């Protein structure tokens, strides 16, 4: 029994990774109506910047993570102001083309700046230990990711549901024109929301560097997983993204253990089943 509980806890960590990524994706879609293909590229940029701040410049790990999230948030502001803002009224394919263009641009920029070789910094000492859980050593790093995932979930919930600012964002998302007529600064709100989404992507990337090598194209592998999560949970629905992340994380680790040859396949089957039986996603229907 304990080995299954332990595996579940490992799965939850993976879920929290996916959640950090899918959260930003859902915010951008839910509020701005943008299906942001470049979200994975922002994750990758977060990882590269954190690597540079922490692994190259030798800054404190926390500071490196924070700086990386802030830098990518600022980049998000630029992307929103000069590019996305031009296409809110256009059809979805234009958004996909534009944001996929960003993916190619960022992948190549990263190759030019950092080279094609993967990089991995030393593990921060306070994250390299383990604590016994269910009779086996459980990595501190995984515990830490669990904690951050839950903290971000609570933070976002408070921000959108309990603050005045969150109420304005929801109003603007509900009806852009009406919000504007009532005196909301809708473009300003949108920019800040996209900064938040970009910053979350970068946070996920930055937090991944102690365990995962930073490489160009890193975002592509991630974005596919994030889309599966978002589709299962309900595209644009934050609670749905959280639930979807847990579903995909658990499916992945338990199938790794119990049906090793179907590990790849199961999350896709579940996604297909959700699309067929409940196309709006488990918690969808906004």
């Amino acid at each position, binding site marked *: 029994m304990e080995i299954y509980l332990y*595996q579940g806890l490992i799965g939850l960590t993976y879920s929290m990774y996916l959640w950090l990524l899918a959260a930003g994706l859902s915010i951008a879609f839910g509020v701005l109506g943008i299906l942001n293909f470049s979200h994975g590229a922002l994750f990758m940029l977060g990882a590269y910047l954190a690597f540079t701040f922490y692994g190259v410049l030798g800054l404190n790990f926390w500071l490196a993570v924070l700086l990386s999230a802030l830098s990518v948030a600022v980049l998000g502001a630029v992307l929103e102001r000069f590019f996305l803002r031009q296409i809110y009224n256009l059809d979805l394919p234009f958004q996909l083309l534009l944001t996929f263009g960003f993916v190619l641009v960022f992948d190549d920029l990263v190759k030019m700046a950092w080279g*094609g070789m*993967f990089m991995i910094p030393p593990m921060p000492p306070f994250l390299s230990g*383990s604590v016994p859980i269910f009779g086996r050593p459980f*990595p501190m790093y995984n515990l830490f990711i669990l904690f951050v995932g839950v903290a971000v979930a609570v933070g976002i919930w408070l921000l959108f549901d309990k603050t005045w600012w969150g109420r304005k964002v929801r109003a603007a998302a509900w009806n852009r024109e009406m919000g504007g007529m009532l005196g909301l600064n809708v473009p300003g709100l949108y920019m800040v929301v996209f900064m938040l989404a970009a910053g979350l992507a970068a946070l996920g990337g930055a937090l991944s560097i102690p*365990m995962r090598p930073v490489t160009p194209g890193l975002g*592509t592998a*991630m974005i596919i997983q994030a889309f599966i999560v978002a589709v299962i949970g309900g595209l644009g629905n934050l609670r749905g993204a959280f639930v979807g992340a847990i579903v995909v994380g658990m499916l992945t680790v338990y199938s790794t253990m119990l049906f090793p040859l179907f590990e790849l396949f199961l999350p896709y089957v579940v996604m297909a089943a959700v699309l067929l039986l409940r196309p709006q996603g488990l918690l969808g229907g906004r």
Partner: protein
Amino acid sequence: MRTTRRKLLAGAGAIGATAYLSKYGIRGAKAQEPVRIGGQGALSGAHADYGRQIQMGATLAIEEINEQGGILGRPVELNFLDEELRPDVATRNARVQVDDWGADFLVGVDSSGSALAMGPVLAELDRICVFTHAGTHRLTEELVAGQGIQQIFRASAPVYQESILAAHLFAQREDITRWANIGADYEYGHANWALFKQTLQQLRPDVEFVAEAWAPFHTIDFSGHVSSVLAANPHAVYSTPWGGEAVSLLRSALVMGAFNQLEAWWQAMGASVDVLEGISGQIDQFNGKLWATGRYIFNWSEEETRDLNAAFNAAFQERWGRFPNYSAECTYSAVYSLKQAAEAAGSTDTAEVIEAMEGMSVKTPAGVRNYRAEDHQAVYTVPAGRVAKLDDYPMPVVGEDLFIEDPKEYYRWPPFEALEY
């Protein structure tokens, strides 16, 4: 001025003639037509260092050869493309290099899947490709010895190196009777595990294989794989992910206490320079339980080629500022093999070079390579051993308890029996 039809035609004729002359006449008079070598490897992602090393090895060999007067007195040129570990991209690259660029020979290729897909294309294009990394035994056993695709050669050791040699090494360990596998979930990893199991089972009927977890390319997180095989209480883990993914996997294994729980961890291609660099900071935490091999290790060569290896190491480090990985050495040696074969044949014609290369013996940094006539596989020795930090190198190397076997012992030999997996 009125442009008449006649003037137009005359003009077009003149342009055509100039173009013709510059292609075959004028330039041909100035310099000999170059020997063109098309290379490819993974240049992006967690496995990018292998393609980069293939490119570095090929470039260094070609620069040296051009300084010595080229191949058959002709200068050598390199065109290099990213195969992205994708069979469709690899076959397209081969076509572009041969049809559009005019490649005489092809070298490289990291992925086993890509290599298998290229086989039939090489027969159609009638160009030799010397593979320098892709490891599946099926490339040479099935496509060359079985189907007779003569254009395939392989300079690098195939999966025999990390699977059969490992089985011989660990058959001696009485304390290890429970094995688990964390496999690369594609041709390479499955072939590896099947060969290892088959060989070890024959030598040690008491050994059990207790768990398997499979990780595809672009696996994001290995902790689920590590925890699921550790839950089966194995004595040792057999692991085949490579490149950055091997580093990521080993980090997960470390923080989950694998190197306290286990007696040994076999990281098949752990002697790869990028992996050794990636685990350099944690080497003490492996408790001396990490074992590996490579298709070449820069710190070892057989007696006869020791000086050649030292010279290659020095030249490589001077040119690139890094230690040569096996994909670099294998490609470097592949280019020299092609030179030796073309010069023995007196031509770059595919059929003549194939004939010269079959059974040919070449002195290379790794050792003396013999290209078996039956399946075009280069036969040479690479040791396995314990990964350790030695004073002579800035990173850990496969340097302790070296296990050196004659390839007669651990290569499969024709006639080949198909392997079920």
